């Protein structure tokens, strides 16, 4: 497809389980970002990948959160031992080079931790 895609679109899990969220960026975009948006809150930066550089993980809220990216393509965000406060929409975005350019967002994954 032409845009950023994410899967699953919705995920319901039990507290304590691990979840994996996937993002396919726009082809050719070297930069990829993960954000989280809790209900009624603003967008919260989580992690950034740029080409083959080491990712910036400064926004990850705890060591239960991790993310990987394969080259300049697919990224997965993993949340281990999920907690109820992890419930949010997780948004992925990509941009051409990452230098303050327009970021194009995927449709998001709505995560609900029971």
């Amino acid at each position: 497809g032409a845009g950023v895609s994410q899967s699953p679109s919705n995920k319901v899990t039990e507290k304590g389980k691990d979840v994996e969220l996937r993002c396919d960026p726009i082809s050719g975009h070297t930069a990829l970002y993960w954000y989280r948006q809790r209900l009624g809150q603003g967008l919260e930066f989580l992690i950034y990948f740029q080409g083959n550089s080491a990712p910036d993980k400064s926004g990850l809220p705890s060591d239960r959160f991790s993310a990987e990216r394969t080259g300049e393509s697919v990224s997965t965000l993993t949340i281990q031992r999920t907690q109820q406060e992890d419930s949010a929409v997780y948004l992925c975005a990509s941009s051409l080079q990452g230098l303050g350019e327009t970021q194009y967002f995927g449709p998001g994954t709505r995560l609900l931790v029971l």
Partner: protein
Amino acid sequence: EDKVVQSPLSLVVHEGDTVTLNCSYEVTNFRSLLWYKQEKKAPTFLFMLTSSGIEKKSGRLSSILDKKELFSILNITATQTGDSAIYLCAVPDSGAGSYQLTFGKGTKLSVIP
């Protein structure tokens, strides 16, 4: 610290009205300002503004940037119910890495039939 402030936080109008949404910013090294529309989950890109005084237009939406006064406005004319959404303003992080977007809290627009 970079800061983006949007106003009003929420707005209720009737179909056909014209609305103006405001975004003020404080960044050390300004490069651009972006407007997004967020309906259900993901924000969709509207405009990217880099130059002062040049209006960007797309249908009934338009936006302009004032780099001297450090603000931007987003105008929507002849509003429709489909314009109901949260409108987000964002500026890229001014740090050396300059890869993050700092978002405002958004303006929630509700258009009543």
